[in-house]
């Protein structure tokens, strides 16, 4: 690492030096691609292609990838917050139970509390419910955070307690009953057949994302020009723009290639006065709302982690709590805010999970804490603190879900699935640890 200090943007990236370090390294330096992130993408590609071959060509199909994207959402949403929890040297074991409890409260709002007041399918039911869920999630997160940061009880213990408490509380909300059906607008968050945005809107989102990528790259250049810093070579910028936009548009093309199932398509045809063609009607579902919510969560959380004071402080606290304190940072308040954020994300995830089932059950989110933590850790978050990325955690969630759904596709029985998932988790973190030791 020491030899590389001068290279990335250090102002000495001369041609002679680049020739010395070889073409691969020069390429990585010029594009400033994170090697670990690249490794994860390669790992994901290996998993996908492996399953595709082993499952006889059903894994890499639009249908399976569409389902995979929806299945990943709830864990991915929470993983974006778990990254910050782990970066700040804490842990949250309560997220699965908290998801269950909040989903039950939101279920009760829609099925028992609001209907007597405003009737069923009142236009604002979903937003009131969501607001209550998020507020309660923030409050519970604040409680966890307060006990951890101000009373000094270890996060492991506080959230282990939370795991038991909120699972119990989830049962208590309706004495173990399942609360259904949910408000139909609220149900849109679950991404069933009607809760997708269609092909056109998906393309629009894709194009907007591409414009965002380009603006980001241009803005980065302008910022660096402002202080006469060395710029990335034009070819590297072009390469990044092309790969970024290509990946986004490619993903949307795949998603849009998954048509509505016949039943839904018939309803759609009837609703839009389209005569039913003999060969069946091809209507794209487009991106599902849970996926959009997860992506939005990732964008917001990435912004918070990288571009705000709060995010910077979370990382500084994780790197050296004493230094953060001496730097004048109110470390306790920052830790408390991390847990508040985690509670909010649990509420959003709970809304998505219950909307997907169109029911709230007290078992919702059971064992999710393990998948969420695994996703963050596979995504590069380190329990030593100070290290982790939100996009990494999203990828980690996708890897975990890919393994599960791939094994399901292949008809592997669930005990073996658990064994494989567990082994992969340990191996992934083992490789990462070894890599990090070498890098440092």
């Amino acid at each position, binding site marked *: 690492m020491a030899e590389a200090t001068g290279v990335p943007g250090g102002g000495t990236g001369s041609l002679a030096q680049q020739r010395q370090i070889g073409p691969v390294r020069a390429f990585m330096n010029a594009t400033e691609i994170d090697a670990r992130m690249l490794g994860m993408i390669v790992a994901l590609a290996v998993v996908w292609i492996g399953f595709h071959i082993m499952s006889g060509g059903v894994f890499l199909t639009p249908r399976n990838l569409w389902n995979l994207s929806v299945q990943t959402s709830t864990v991915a949403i929470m993983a974006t917050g778990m990254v910050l929890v782990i970066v700040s040297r804490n842990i949250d074991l309560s997220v699965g139970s908290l998801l269950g409890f909040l989903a039950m409260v939101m279920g009760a709002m829609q099925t028992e509390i609001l209907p007597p007041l405003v009737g069923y399918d009142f236009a604002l039911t979903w937003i009131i419910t969501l607001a209550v869920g998020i507020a309660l999630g923030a409050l519970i997160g604040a409680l966890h955070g307060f006990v951890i940061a101000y009373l000094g009880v270890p996060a492991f213990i506080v959230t282990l307690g939370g795991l038991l408490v909120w699972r119990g509380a989830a049962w208590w909300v309706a004495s173990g009953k399942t609360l259904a059906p949910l408000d139909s607008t609220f149900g849109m968050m679950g991404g069933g057949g009607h809760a997708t945005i269609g092909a056109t809107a998906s393309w629009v989102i894709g194009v907007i994302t591409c414009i965002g990528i380009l603006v980001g790259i241009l803005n980065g250049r302008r910022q660096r020009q402002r202080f006469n*810093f060395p710029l990335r070579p034009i070819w590297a910028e072009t390469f990044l723009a092309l790969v970024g936009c290509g990946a986004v548009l490619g993903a949307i093309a795949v998603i849009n290639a998954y048509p509505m199932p016949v039943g839904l398509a018939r309803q759609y045809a009837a609703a839009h006065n389209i005569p039913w063609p003999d060969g069946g009607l091809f209507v794209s579902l487009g991106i599902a709302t849970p996926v959009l919510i997860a992506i939005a969560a990732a964008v917001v959380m990435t912004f918070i982690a990288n571009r705000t004071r709060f995010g910077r402080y979370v990382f500084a606290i994780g790197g*050296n709590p004493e230094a953060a304190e001496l730097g004048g940072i109110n470390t306790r308040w920052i830790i408390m805010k991390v847990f508040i954020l985690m509670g909010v994300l649990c509420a959003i995830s709970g809304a998505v999970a219950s909307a997907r089932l169109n029911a709230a059950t007290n078992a919702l989110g059971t064992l999710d804490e393990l998948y969420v933590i695994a996703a963050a850790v596979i995504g590069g978050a380190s329990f030593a603190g100070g290290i982790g990325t939100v996009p990494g955690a999203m990828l980690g969630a996708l890897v975990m879900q890919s393994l599960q759904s791939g094994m399901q596709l292949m008809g592997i029985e669930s005990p073996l699935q658990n064994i494989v998932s567990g082994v992969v988790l340990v191996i992934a973190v083992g490789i990462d640890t070894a890599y990090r030791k070498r890098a440092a």
Partner: protein
Amino acid sequence: MSENRTPLVEMRNIYVSFGGVHAVENATIDLYAGEVVGLVGGNGAGKSTLMKVLSGAYRADSGQILIDGKRVTINNPRDAKVLGIETIYQTLALADNVDAPANMFLGRELMTKWGTLDDVAMEAASRKVMGRLNPVFKGFKTPVKALSGGQRQSVAIARAIHFNARILIMDEPTAALGPAETAQVRDLVKQLKKEGIGIFLISHEIHDVFDLADRITVMKTARMVGTVNKDDVTTDEVLAMIIGGTLPQGIAITNAYTEARV
């Protein structure tokens, strides 16, 4: 130093204890603008603890702190920084996982007009300070964990001098440095002194202290032994103060507050 000037810093009768252990007992020390006061003593003498009271890391159980003759309360590092007190800690107090600019501006980040971190501006400012301090420094984008001991020390020093400190506390500032870098720090201390900054210098290296300090304050087992003018004493006499806790014969104690009390 002239008696009729108001000291930049006065700490009077400071007591600090940790769970019944007295770390600092009745310590009184002062510092004038443009002066370097060397703070010396054996391990556990209470030097760092006393300075941490001034930098806001610890709170005194009792005692007063005066800046420009006015009483101030310093409850946390932020208070100290508002008063223009900057500290280079012995441990450097760097967040190892973030880069040099992020460490330099930790707690005082530059923001864009959108309220987001202005990393480019912070890097530019860091390059400027580093250009003066350690011109060969290059690792602006790497986590400081990957830097050498000397480079890390440069980051800690750069952080302290960037914010126009009036009072600088340097706790073993040359501990991790090689000879060339140590010389650089000495030059820096002399330069900062010329700019009118008051410096408390904690050091085990008695020669450093003799080279740089105007006055030397000696502590032993949590108590003040005394403050002497550097030019009035020899290194042996100072060593006797450190080890034996005895004042040399016929030497004036130049501590304004103590004198006022006597």
